[in-house]
C-alpha cells in the first residue's frame, strides 16, 4: 500500500464528521420547520390547543431550533438517538435495525443476481459486436433499464399475481433460521428482488458492454493478441481487468443508493424496510427516526464514495490520490 494512501484515507475520514454535522443540521432544521409536528398530528384537529402546547413544552419543541439541535447532537454523540413517536416510546435503534435488515436482504440478493447476470451479459454483448446478438442485447437491456420501478411493479403484479396467481401481491414474512430472521426464503421476497434485479442488471450490462468495447480497441489488447495470447486469456487478463474500472464505481453508487432506491419498491409492495420507514417518518414528522435514517444513509454514502475513489486510484494510476499540484 502506498504511503500516500493511508494519509489520504485519514484525511477523507476526517471530513466525515463535518459532513454529518452539516447534513444533520439541514435535516433537523427542515424537519422542525415543516408545517405541523407529531404532537399536532397524533392529537388530531379536535384536541385542546393548550394540551398540545403543554406537551410541546415538555418535549422541548417550543425551544429555538438551535437549542433543540444542540441537545440532539449532545445526546447523539453519547449514543442516544432518541425515541420513535410512532410506534411510541421505542428507542430509534430498535425501530431502524429490523427494517434495515429487511432492506439489506432484498438489495443484497438483487445485487448478487444482477452482478452474476449483468457482467457476463455485458461482456458477451461486447464480444459479439457485429453479429445480430449485440444490437438485440442492447435493445433488451435498454428497454428493461428504462422502465421505472413505479411502472414495472404494477405490471409485474398484474402478470404474476392477477393473471398467473403465482406470487403473493406484496408484504413481507419472516422466518427464523438459527436465530436469524430471514424473509428471502418466502415467496413474498420474489417480486421485490425480481424488480430490483431487473432495474440494475440491465444498466450494469450496458455499462459493462460499453467499457469492454472501449478497452477492446486499445493498443495493448492488439499487442496481446499479436503476441499470440489465447483469446480468453486476453479477455480475462487484459480486457476485463481494465473494463472493471467504472463498474467498481457503480458498485459504490448502488451501495450509496441502498435506502433511497428502496423507497418505491417498498411503498408499492408494502414491505417494511428502510425506504418505507423513511417515507412514513417524514410524513408523520417522526423526527428522531427521520434524523437517524439520514445520518445512517449519509454514513453509508460517504464510506461508499471513499471506497470508489480509492478503487479509482488503484486501478488507474494516472489518477493520483490526494496529490497536490502537478
Amino acid at each position, binding site marked *: 500500500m502506498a504511503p500516500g494512501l493511508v494519509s489520504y484515507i485519514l484525511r477523507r475520514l476526517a471530513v466525515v464528521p*463535518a*459532513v454529518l454535522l452539516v447534513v444533520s443540521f*439541514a435535516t433537523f432544521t427542515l424537519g422542525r420547520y415543516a408545517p405541523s409536528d407529531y404532537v399536532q398530528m397524533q392529537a388530531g384537529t379536535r384536541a385542546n390547543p393548550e394540551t398540545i402546547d403543554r406537551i410541546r413544552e415538555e418535549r422541548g419543541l417550543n425551544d429555538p431550533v438551535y437549542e433543540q439541535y444542540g441537545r440532539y447532537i449532545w445526546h447523539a454523540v453519547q449514543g442516544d438517538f432518541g425515541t420513535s413517536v410512532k410506534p411510541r416510546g421505542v428507542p430509534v435503534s430498535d425501530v431502524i435495525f429490523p427494517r434495515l435488515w429487511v432492506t439489506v436482504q432484498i438489495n443484497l440478493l438483487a445485487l448478487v443476481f444482477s452482478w452474476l447476470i449483468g457482467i457476463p451479459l455485458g461482456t458477451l454483448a461486447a464480444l459479439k459486436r457485429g453479429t445480430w446478438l449485440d444490437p438485440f442485447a442492447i435493445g433488451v437491456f435498454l428497454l428493461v433499464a428504462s422502465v421505472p420501478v413505479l*411502472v414495472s411493479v404494477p405490471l409485474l403484479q*398484474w402478470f404474476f399475481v*392477477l393473471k398467473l396467481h403465482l406470487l403473493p401481491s406484496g408484504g413481507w414474512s419472516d422466518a427464523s433460521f438459527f436465530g436469524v430472521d430471514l424473509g428471502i426464503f418466502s415467496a413474498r421476497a420474489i417480486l421485490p428482488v425480481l424488480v430490483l434485479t431487473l432495474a440494475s442488471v440491465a444498466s450494469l450490462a450496458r455499462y459493462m458492454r460499453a467499457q469492454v468495447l472501449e478497452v477492446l480497441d486499445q493498443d495493448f489488447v492488439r499487442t496481446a493478441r499479436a503476441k499470440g495470447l489465447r483469446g480468453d486469456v486476453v479477455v480475462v487478463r487484459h480486457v476485463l481487468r481494465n473494463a472493471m474500472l467504472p463498474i467498481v464505481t457503480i458498485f459504490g453508487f448502488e451501495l450509496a443508493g*441502498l435506502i433511497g432506491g428502496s*423507497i418505491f419498491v417498498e411503498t*408499492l409492495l408494502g414491505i417494511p424496510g428502510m425506504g418505507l420507514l423513511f*417515507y412514513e417518518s417524514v410524513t408523520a414528522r417522526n423526527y428522531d427516526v427521520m434524523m437517524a435514517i439520514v445520518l445512517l444513509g449519509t454514513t453509508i454514502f460517504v464510506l461508499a464514495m471513499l471506497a470508489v475513489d480509492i478503487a479509482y486510484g488503484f486501478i488507474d494510476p494516472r489518477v493520483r490520490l490526494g496529490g497536490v499540484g502537478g
Partner: protein
Amino acid sequence: MSYLPVPPTDPSMRLSEAEALGVVEATHPLRVRSRIMRRLLRRPVAVVAIAVIVVIYGAGIFAPLIAPHGFNDADFQDRYANPSLSHPLGTDSLGRDLLSRAIWSAQTTVIISVAAVLTGGLMLGVTLGLLAGYLRGAADFIIMRLGEIFGSVPPILMLLIITATLLNDVKDLGSNIEDVTGQHWIVSSGAPSYVLVFGALAMFGWVGLSRLIRSQVLALREAPYITAAQASGASNVRILFWHLLPNVGNLLIVSLTLSLGAAAGAEVGLTFLGIGVQSPHPSFGAMIADAVGLSNVREHIQLILVPAVVVSSLILAFNLLGDQLTDVLSPRHR
C-alpha cells in the same frame, strides 16, 4: 450543412503557438461535431429515439393547443370509460380524459426536467467539475466537499424532506410575488410546486456530473497538449473552456441526454409519493398514483398503461439517444 466557423478576428480564438506548431490537433472539436450530427441522423435507431422525444416534448410544449380537454375536467357520469371518439384513451376514476391528462403531464415533465438539467447539470455541474479537476488543490477540495455534503445523503431522501417541508414557504413566496407584480395566476397555476421540484432536483443534479467531468479532467490534464498549452502561456479560463471542455464535451452531451431522462423519472417519482407537483396539476406520477392498487390494476389496467407507456418510452428514447451518441462520438468506434 457547414461546420461552425471559428471567427479569426476574435483574438481569444486565435491558434495558440502549440496549435500552430501542430503539437495539438488543429481541427477544433466543434468542427467534428457537425459531422457527428449527420452521422447520427443516418442511424435509424437514433432517428426513432429523436422522433419519440420530439413527439412527447412537442405534445407537452403545445399542450394548450392540442389537448382536447383540460387536465382537470371531471365528468362523474363517465368514469372509467372505455376508449371512444370523445375520449380516445378512455377516462379515469374521476371521468377525466386520459389522453388530455397525458398531454398535460408531458408539459409538466418538459418544464421540470429541462429546467433542472439546464441549471443543475449544465450551469453548476460543468463549471464546478472543470474547476475542481483542473485547479485541484483548495478549489478541488472545497468543491468536492460541497459535492460530498450535497451528495452524501441519497438524493431521494433529501428531495423527499425538502419537497415535503418547504412547499408552504415557496407558496408564500409565490403569493408575495403576486402582490408585488399584480400577476394573480402564479400560485393557482401550480408554479410553486414546479419551482420547488426543479430547484430541489437541480440542487442535487450537479454532483454526479461534476464528479464525472472532474475525473475525466484529472486524467486529461496530464495529457501533453495541456502541458503544451500551459507552456505557451494560455490562461486557465482558456485551457478550461477551449482545450478541456471540448474534450469532455462528448461525455457531457451523453450525460445531459441521460440526465433529461433521469430528471423526468425523478419528477414522476416525487409526484407519485404525493410531494412533487401538487394535485390537481397534471403529472405522470399523479396518474400512476391514481392507477396502482390491486383492484385498479385488476379492473382498469389501461389507467396504468397510459402513463407507463409514455414515461417508459420517453426514458427509453433518451437512453437510446445517449447510447447512439456514445457510439457516434467515441473516436475509436468510427
